[in-house]
């Protein structure tokens, strides 16, 4: 957002104007979405203005759905919450899903059908499409989890068309012999991961984090070997930094240690670690899990599965199941074969749906050149992206929340996706486009999806099951069943290349493989381990950086056989010394909104499987100005910020701190929060949830670089001794003796009767004294009119229960006071006291690892009171006498 200082740019004005028109269309149809959508909990009799409605639906990405309840206000979706009944979500979502609701209103979305750049109508496309089906037609999609989409693709296949699949990054679970290996961390006491980022961002993050968290604050033993630090590595008690090419050796070593086979040649540290890991796995046979990154060679997975089977883990801590995703005809080579056929002139028409191969095609596959040989090219996407620019036809794709579809969660559980808003722009669902190719351009996605499930359920049961499935948000008992991995000899991969510098690839933690690059809320989401925003960096070890004489931000060039990239260097703690990490998702040339042109494009070096490559590195000219939200990432000797206890031990009790001030009586509920540092996985979902719930604006990279990010809740990261990584979510502490309040000259921040540290925006004159006085620096200041500088279209997602803050006003975490008020009103209507757990803050609700507890401290039986009385409770900077209402539960570490 470059438009802060000098008013909105012309581009953003036009965007806003367009969005305003769209918004007026919304206002005109303020009733329930058409086609008999059924709300989650109650029959819609009347719409009550001011009362939200929740619809159970799902948000798909990378082939899998995240089951959600969509909160809508007067027909306007404002927030997605995890579906509490869904077996995977259990009420939680990840950061991507939290931001999805803003994508509905994203002004950078595509909104017209284009033929050679000129606007045409749906009929023009339908006329053209009707004649395409036949042997020369190829369909290219990303991972397909939707049964309906798969059914349509099969129907097209019957007419001679061929379906190809291109997903830039491997699916989260490895598969062996046709069976997907789904981990069940909740049943594992010991987990050994070889480069498998179980807890990292992606479609399985919620599944794994939910299972990883231990109710009541225990901790599973986690041992990780990986080349570059991930959230999984950060959570590990024992972590070994090794080049990616050594992971298969470690797998071999563990297997050898357990079955007495040939122990491979390895460095002493590697051998020692492998022996520890093997011993821990063996000691917990049946309750342990060995897992390897899904991008590793298949024979590694074969041997990992063998270990798990030998230990009795298979079927318990890891479930071989039927795949939830549709399998492409040509397997892993699907995309490569398509491009070969295109280049050979064997393709007469290519329809790309929801993929962006012109950007994500790996090194060595020249999609653009091959595309030039295809006579008819169609691209359907959310954004006018790189592929759209190369294709003759471009269709604006509907957002998943705008039209009917279906899909499967990572465990295979199917959901019907019901729209929660009519299309904000004139957009078309993938089902409608495939129907047009099948010669039925008027078919409605609603009917197409119903047809799929009518065939599954049979005509008699259909109506009732359809209704039940919409109500529940998922179709019960559709989880993928067990599968037996087919035995077979995997082709033995060439032994890992020599000793030189290794380059590994990782999807960006905040924008994934680039699919969320156009979402500014995710661009500004600090990447959990670097706290960078809006850019990607080339990660390298401290030793390598010292050897090259470079510091964070210095530009470096990385040359491989496949090409060269230049990007800013960043020292990653815990990085294998001879490994350099490239992050995918940046260097977008088109269709990434405000992030277009930022960062470097790692796909230019990445091989098709995403495996590591060799490269040389050198210093390049210049420095980058990176927008980092947390420049200092060590504790600087202030070890009491993050406290740890040994398992079963207690922290010394917080001393009673007398105060010169009289005690204030808090007759009503005394709201408080406890955050379990042992549970927090640093996934950032809470940060985005808070941002969406409280209509917190994004400010753009220049403002972030100046230290002006607005997140009300931040997750601090500290790198401690012996490779320890600490995450610490910091909301407002709601101090009872708040230094900020005492500094305010105009009573703009005062204490509420329930102990909330309140911020009265319309009273604030912006002296910023409260921020100066705040020991936790949780206050955020509107240095510019950040909310107003955002494209007007984003007003759509804003929470109507939260005030929008103007220029010159301070703001901060309110403990979701609007949610407290809502619960209070409900309780008062029913003439009863508030129940524990009735008020759920946005951060608490979204947290997959249940790290946050909120409630009434005055009620000794409330969950938060129990947590606060517990042995691990401590106050952050408690010695200042501020008496914070937010407390922390210490991390658990073995001595």
């Amino acid at each position, binding site marked *: 957002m470059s438009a802060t200082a000098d008013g909105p740019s012309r581009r953003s004005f036009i965007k806003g104007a367009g969005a305003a028109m769209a918004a007026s269309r919304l206002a005109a149809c303020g009733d329930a979405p058409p086609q008999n959508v059924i709300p989650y909990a109650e029959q819609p009799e009347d719409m009550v203005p001011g009362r939200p409605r929740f619809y159970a639906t799902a948000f798909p990405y990378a082939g899998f759905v995240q089951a959600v309840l969509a909160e809508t206000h007067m027909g306007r979706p404002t927030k997605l919450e995890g579906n509490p009944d869904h077996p995977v979500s259990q009420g939680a979502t990840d950061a991507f899903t939290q931001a999805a609701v803003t994508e509905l209103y994203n002004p950078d979305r595509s909104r017209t059908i284009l033929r050679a750049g000129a606007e045409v109508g749906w009929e023009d496309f339908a006329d053209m499409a009707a004649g395409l089906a036949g042997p020369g037609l190829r369909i290219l999609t990303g991972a397909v989890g939707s049964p309906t989409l798969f059914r349509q693709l099969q129907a097209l296949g019957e007419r001679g068309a061929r379906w190809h699949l291109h997903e830039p990054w491997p699916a989260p679970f490895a598969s062996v012999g046709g069976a997907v290996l789904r981990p069940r961390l909740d049943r594992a006491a010991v987990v050994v991961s070889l480069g498998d980022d179980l807890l990292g961002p992606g479609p399985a993050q919620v599944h794994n984090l939910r299972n990883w968290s231990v109710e009541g604050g225990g901790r599973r033993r986690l041992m990780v070997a990986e080349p570059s630090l991930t959230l999984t590595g950060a959570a590990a008690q024992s972590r070994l930094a090794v080049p990616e090419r050594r992971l298969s050796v470690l797998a071999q070593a563990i297997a050898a240690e357990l079955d007495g086979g040939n122990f491979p040649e390895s460095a002493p540290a590697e051998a020692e670690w492998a022996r520890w890991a093997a011993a821990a796995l063996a000691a917990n046979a049946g309750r342990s899990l060995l897992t390897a990154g899904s991008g590793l060679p298949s024979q590694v997975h074969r041997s990992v599965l063998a270990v798990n089977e030998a230990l009795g883990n298979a079927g318990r801590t890891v479930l071989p199941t039927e795949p939830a995703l549709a399998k492409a005809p040509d397997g892993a080579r699907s995309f490569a074969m398509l491009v070969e056929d295109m280049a050979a002139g064997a393709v007469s028409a290519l329809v790309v749906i929801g993929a962006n191969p012109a950007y994500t095609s790996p090194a060595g596959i020249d999609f653009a050149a091959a595309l030039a040989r295809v006579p008819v090219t169609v691209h359907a996407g959310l954004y006018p992206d790189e592929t759209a620019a190369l294709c003759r036809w471009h269709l604006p794709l509907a957002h998943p929340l705008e039209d009917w579809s279906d899909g499967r969660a990572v465990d295979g559980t199917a959901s019907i996706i019901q729209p929660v808003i009519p299309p904000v722009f004139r957009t078309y669902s993938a089902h409608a486009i495939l129907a047009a190719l099948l010669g039925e351009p008027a078919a409605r996605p609603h009917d197409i999806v119903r047809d799929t499930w009518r065939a599954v359920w049979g005509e008699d049961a259909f109506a009732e099951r359809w209704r039940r499935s919409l109500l529940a948000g998922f179709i019960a008992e559709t989880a993928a069943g067990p599968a037996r991995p087919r035995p077979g000899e995997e082709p033995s991969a060439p032994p890992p290349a020599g000793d030189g510098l290794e380059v590994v690839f990782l999807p960006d933690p905040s924008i994934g493989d680039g699919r969320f690059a156009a979402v500014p809320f995710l661009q500004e989401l600090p990447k959990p381990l670097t706290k960078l925003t809006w850019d990607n960096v080339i990660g390298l070890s401290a030793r390598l950086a010292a050897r090259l004489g470079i510091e964070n931000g210095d530009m470096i060039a990385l040359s491989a056989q496949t090409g060269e990239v230049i990007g800013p260097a960043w020292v990653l703690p815990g990085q294998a010394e001879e490994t350099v990490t490239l992050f995918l998702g940046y260097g977008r040339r088109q269709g990434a909104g405000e992030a277009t042109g930022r960062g470097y494009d790692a796909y230019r070096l990445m091989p098709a499987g995403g495996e590591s490559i060799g490269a040389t590195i050198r210093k390049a000219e210049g420095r980058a100005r990176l927008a980092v939200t947390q420049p200092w990432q060590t504790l600087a000797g202030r070890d009491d910020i993050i406290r740890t206890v040994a398992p079963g031990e207690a922290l010394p009790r917080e001393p009673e701190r007398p105060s010169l001030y009289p005690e204030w009586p808090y007759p009503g509920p005394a709201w408080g929060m406890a955050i379990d540092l042992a549970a927090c996985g640093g996934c950032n979902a809470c940060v985005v949830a808070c941002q969406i719930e409280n209509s917190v604006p994004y400010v753009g990279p220049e403002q972030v670089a100046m230290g002006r990010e607005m997140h009300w809740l931040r997750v601090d990261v500290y790198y401690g001794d012996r490779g320890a990584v600490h995450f610490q979510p910091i909301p407002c502490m709601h101090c009872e003796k708040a230094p900020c309040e005492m500094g305010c000259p105009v009573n703009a921040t005062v204490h509420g009767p329930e102990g909330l540290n309140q911020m009265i925006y319309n009273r604030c004159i912006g002296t910023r004294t409260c921020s100066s006085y705040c020991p936790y*620096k949780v206050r955020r200041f509107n240095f510019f009119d950040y909310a107003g500088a955002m494209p007007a279209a984003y007003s759509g997602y804003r929470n109507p229960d939260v005030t929008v803050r103007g220029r010159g006003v301070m703001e901060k975490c309110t403990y979701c006071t609007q949610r407290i008020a809502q619960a209070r009103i409900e309780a008062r209507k029913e003439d009863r006291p508030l129940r524990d757990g009735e008020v759920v803050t946005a951060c608490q609700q979204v947290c997959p690892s249940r790290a946050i507890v909120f409630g009434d401290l005055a009620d000794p039986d409330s969950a938060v009171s129990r947590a606060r009385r517990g042995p691990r409770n401590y106050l952050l900077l408690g010695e200042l006498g501020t008496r914070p209402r937010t407390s922390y539960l210490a991390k658990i570490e073995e001595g």
Partner: protein
Amino acid sequence: MGIYQPITEQVADITLQRRFRFRWWLALLASGALVLVFIAAVLWLFAAGVGIWGINVPVNWGLAIVNTVWWVGIGHAGTLISALLLIMSQTWRNALNRFAEAMTLFAVLMAAMFPILHLGRPELFYWMFPVPSTMGVWPQFRSPLIWDVTSFLSYLIASLVFWYVGMIPDLATLRDRARRRWQRRAYGVLALGWRGSAMHWARWRQAYFAIAAIVFVLVISVHSGVAMLFAASTLPGWHTTLLPPFFVFGAVFSGFAVVIVLAVVIRAAFGLHNLLTRDHLDLLGRMLLTTGLLTAYGYLFEAFHAWFSGELREIATLRDQMAGQYAWSYWGAVAMNFATIQLLWWRRARRSVPVLATVAILVAIGMWLERYMIVVTGLYKDFLPSSWGAYQAPVSEWALFAGSIGLFAFLFVLFARFLPLMSMFELKEAAAEEKGEHG
């Protein structure tokens, strides 16, 4: 000719006869150009918001607060010269007090502007006063900011009253010597019909001494209040009882530096060497040395306090002051505020105009650096390393600072032209006493 008329003529004619026309216009134009910079910086600020500054979280106070603390400190010397030396019957003040008071007034005016300009919503600054409003809310009187609002307001008005009351007899002189009609009318209005009556003089003396006594205690409280803005926080490096006296010493110190600079300029510009003698400069030099040593005591004990506390964070802040990102401001302050003034132990240095002026300018800069050090080093690293940040003032903040110096100079140039630069009647009074002693 007598002994009185030369004083009258020399001082009053600066105002009434336009003998220094060219130089004066030059000064007015130079400072006027900076006033335009000031106006532009303020308009830009109001149009775009405080975001144009380099401030952020955690350093959410920048040059604006540095400048406020610095300017109001400068004001202190003028008041002390006038009030304290009056009460102590130090007649050497008579050559200095008028322009020193003018300096105070303009400096406090500058100081009072910055806190308003730095607000996120400056148009609502009046909410800091107990004005009944539809919200029904009142100011929050426990806030040190409110203390500063009241102290700045009191100081500004009290300084104006003190200055004006002290000037009435001289305004009457200008009225009576004026030849032009507008001068007669203007000075006539300002002089309020003063006719040197013995009864009037008697009451005037009572009032002047009463005001001086009050203003003297007021001035001590003003910079204590400013210090409280920092000391009332919990931040390491700020939260100390040393701060109020430390701030007051520094304030008077910087004020004397600026008085010396102005004295040297006035003396040369208007040929007042006979009234503003080297003896005056010598005395001012001694004051500078004395207050400088008091300030140095503050530095010493700030460091001692941090070390003696044994508090990790206090020591870390001390280390940041001395070796951190902004150590230049600390060592700059020590060099200019402590090292340079050691020259003033020598009488010859005190009586040398170039040496004294150079030392004074360095002290003024050094005290600004000290304020910068206190504000920025206090904020950029506080309790949680995660919230540590950095700060750099962009041109928008420097422009405002430069503009405020220009506005100060502009007002002073106007004052020098239109109002009596020195207290004529007090000079005559002193001359009469001297005559009495010798004659």
